[in-house]
């Protein structure tokens, strides 16, 4: 019996809808008790390959060997039976159900022949949770969890099905530093117990940090498998992009005089049916020509802050002013008219209408400009779309439904739209979630360009590297209120560990000392 857990050979998968070849004669091998990173640009075919292995997509040709045995995997059930589990890029969870319910779904512990044994379910799930040092309550409603916690639920779901081979599709994309760290801890212990893991990620340092080997895909093909130790980040980047590529971005300190654009004063948000305020006495100013970063662990109010900035969540107290005018009661409609530009964190559910064409998605906020006497000006709209598609090198055409683009390209479209329509301030929330290094770099350079053009840029991100490398000033959120503000020198000297401490609300004691 060999020491490879999985061998995929000569896999070919073409999507009927798009007629696009997502996997073009791909080979993949995963050793036992190893962590393999699967990397590659957006749309390279990573998820597709994993779906094939998990029995969710049928390949036209190719063979799969698991634990030395040729196998046919027609459904996730087969995969589970073979000890293969997958954590999906987009959560596969029922928000209305509890953690326990989500975990046992499809493999319910029975009380008798008919009834689910709810207690056993809680107990079993709790065991899995503790065995791997997770921090979620089995009886909590998944809908109320943060992205990070949802991630954990997904993993627990698979561990509950005691799989030996675990696929994680971009698990860290939506996680904060701390969450990622603890996740990696878990993954290592899993590996040490002899499980094999396939981890998809776009973050080079994560590949270096966690993986034993790395497999790299490009445009549907497998570039190759490499010992992680034998390649450095620059080489990795090169392999992924097919050309030499440096993720570093040049950022010059900003000089020009700054004026206040946005001012929050004692803003708080309280929902009727829950006691603890989701935002509490939040006060800050955002100025022209600076990138203002907001850091916080999931569940600490960044989501609400985002919604408030977007005008989709009314505030319970305090005032917000834009250029001196009170906009506390303004809804999204008003704010847009005042020139709000905003790249939402949830680009699929909020940032785009997937069935609508790219051109239609591009004018949502600027539709007035493209209509005369209430009639849309088709030619201008098309023209506008083509120019943006070219300048942002989006892979797609103006009248394709945007839903058929890859994640990276959808984000480019949104970016293009918002940058095209911004006037004096622009909000970015989690702008590089799930983007490959090239796209991420692209986004970051755009943000800096905006700042240098005198924009006031607000960056909400759970990615500390992003925050620290881009922001001129950082506000740290914990439990819905600002616990620290970092600027200038402090911003360069602060360590991630300190940041983490702040985010967990440590400042209180610190303040007491001074």
């Amino acid at each position, binding site marked *: 019996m060999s020491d490879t857990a999985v061998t995929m050979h000569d896999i070919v998968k073409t999507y009927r809808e798009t007629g696009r070849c997502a996997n073009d004669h791909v080979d993949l091998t995963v050793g036992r008790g190893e962590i393999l990173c699967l990397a590659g640009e957006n749309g390279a075919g990573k998820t597709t390959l994993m779906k094939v292995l998990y029995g969710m997509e049928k390949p036209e040709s190719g063979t799969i060997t698991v634990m030395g045995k040729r196998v046919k995997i027609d459904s996730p059930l087969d995969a589970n039976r073979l000890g293969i589990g997958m954590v999906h890029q987009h959560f596969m969870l029922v928000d209305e159900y509890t953690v326990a319910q989500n975990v046992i779904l499809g493999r319910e512990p029975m009380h008798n022949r008919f009834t689910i044994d709810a207690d056993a379910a809680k107990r079993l799930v709790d065991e899995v949770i503790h065995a791997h040092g997770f921090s979620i309550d089995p009886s909590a409603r998944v809908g109320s969890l943060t992205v990070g916690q949802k991630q954990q639920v997904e993993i627990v779901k698979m561990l509950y099905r005691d799989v030996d081979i675990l696929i994680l599709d971009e698990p860290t994309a939506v996680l904060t530093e701390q969450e990622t760290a603890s996740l990696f801890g878990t993954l290592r212990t899993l590996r040490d117990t002899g499980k094999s893991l396939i981890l998809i990620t776009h973050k080079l340092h994560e590949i270096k940090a966690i993986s034993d080997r790395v497999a790299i895909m490009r445009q549907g093909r497998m570039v190759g498998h490499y010992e992680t130790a034998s390649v450095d980040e620059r080489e990795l980047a090169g392999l992924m992009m097919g050309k030499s590529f440096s993720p570093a971005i040049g950022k010059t300190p900003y000089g020009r005089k700054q004026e206040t654009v946005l001012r929050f004063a004692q803003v708080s948000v309280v929902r009727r049916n829950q006691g603890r305020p989701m935002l509490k006495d939040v006060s800050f100013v955002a100025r022209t020509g600076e990138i203002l970063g907001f850091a916080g662990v999931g569940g600490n109010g960044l989501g609400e802050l985002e919604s408030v900035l*977007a005008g*989709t969540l009314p505030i319970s107290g305090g005032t917000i002013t834009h250029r001196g005018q009170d906009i506390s009661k303004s809804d*999204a*409609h*008003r*704010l*847009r*008219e005042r020139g*709000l530009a*905003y790249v*939402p964190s949830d680009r699929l*559910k*909020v*940032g*785009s*209408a*997937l*069935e*609508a064409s790219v051109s*239609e998605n591009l004018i*949502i*906020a600027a*539709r*007035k400009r493209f*209509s005369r006497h*209430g*009639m*849309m000006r*088709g030619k201008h709209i*098309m023209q506008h779309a*083509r120019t943006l598609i070219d300048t942002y090198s989006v892979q797609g*055409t*103006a*009248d*394709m439904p945007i839903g058929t683009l890859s994640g990276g390209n959808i984000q480019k479209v949104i970016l293009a739209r918002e940058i095209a329509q911004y006037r004096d301030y622009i909000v970015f929330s989690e702008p590089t979630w799930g983007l490959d290094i090239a796209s991420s770099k692209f986004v970051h350079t755009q943000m800096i360009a905006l700042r240098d053009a005198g924009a006031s840029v607000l960056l909400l991100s759970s990615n500390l590297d992003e925050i620290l490398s881009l922001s001129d000033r950082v506000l740290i959120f914990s439990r819905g209120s600002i616990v620290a503000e970092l600027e200038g020198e402090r911003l360069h000297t602060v360590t991630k560990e300190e940041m983490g401490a702040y985010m967990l609300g440590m400042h209180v004691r610190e303040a007491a000392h001074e």
Partner: protein
Amino acid sequence: MNDRMDRRWKRFLGVPRSALGSLVILFIALAAVFLLSFLLSKTPARTLRYFFIGPLQNTYYLGNMLNTSIPLIFSALGVSLAMRAGSFNLGGEGQLYGGAFIATVSAVAMAGWGIAGVICAIVLGAVTGGVMAAFSGYLRMKWQTNELITTFLLSNAVSLVVGYLIAGPFMDPATNLIATRKIPESFRFSRILEPSNLSSALVMALVMTVVVHLYLYRTKSGYELRMYGLNPRFARYGGINSGSYLVLPMFLSGALYGLGGAMAIFGTYYACMKDFSVGMGWNALAVALIARFRPVAIIPAALFFAYIESGARNAMLHSDVTFEIASIVQSVVFFLVTSSVLQRIGTKRERG
């Protein structure tokens, strides 16, 4: 590949593809009709002849078939407008009935006004339907009350009240039909295919289809409406006033139903008879669903529906088919008509 190429590709492959799919369904459905008539009719040959040829055999039947499609077109446009905005208007029947009633009585009242009267009456009818539907839209905007249910309930209640008004205060003493007074001669649309009932309302139906199409795909409001229907959060994010797109589309939807009712009166019946609208709401919904809420597709869908309807009617008139058998046949057609699997059979053929 550039856009022009891409659009060409759509035009040259996409359209016939879907059309062929529909043809396959049509074929299967008609095969089913064939089978049924052999099962249920003692004179299948005669039955089939009248079912298929009947509606087309002479100007009279042809005209009447076209005529039945008129209110269907208006109403189906109504359904589609609401659907496009993500609202479900299940109260079409009452809106059509109410609109027709108001249009009729106001036409009678404004007998002297000439052309102005016609327009006023029809507009009033449309507004009536619109307000009924908009009310449900308002409830949803205000408190997320499920419009699917409120439209349905309101429609039922209104139908009863209108029924009373027709049989009571507004009943025409000169007739034994349970109907209002007839609208003035001068108000009635001209017949365009004697001896059939087909009236110039057909033209308006076609015009209205184009108007709705243009509204949806060429105007700013139409664009906002569609975006809201596709993804309300996105529309809101983009600064579209979400509240108004819960009410406006419903109003337009109801108004189109009301128009459909008014057209039936001014083009065909001339008086609002008790319960004349029974079933029209559902049929319109069927048509809209067959057309997948695409305005332009509604015309063929409505014609198809009217054809099946009058085919069944013809078989009843001239063969031994009874209405219950006719309804069985119709049901079989509906079972198949939206099947996307059967659709694909067509597209596959087209591919290979």
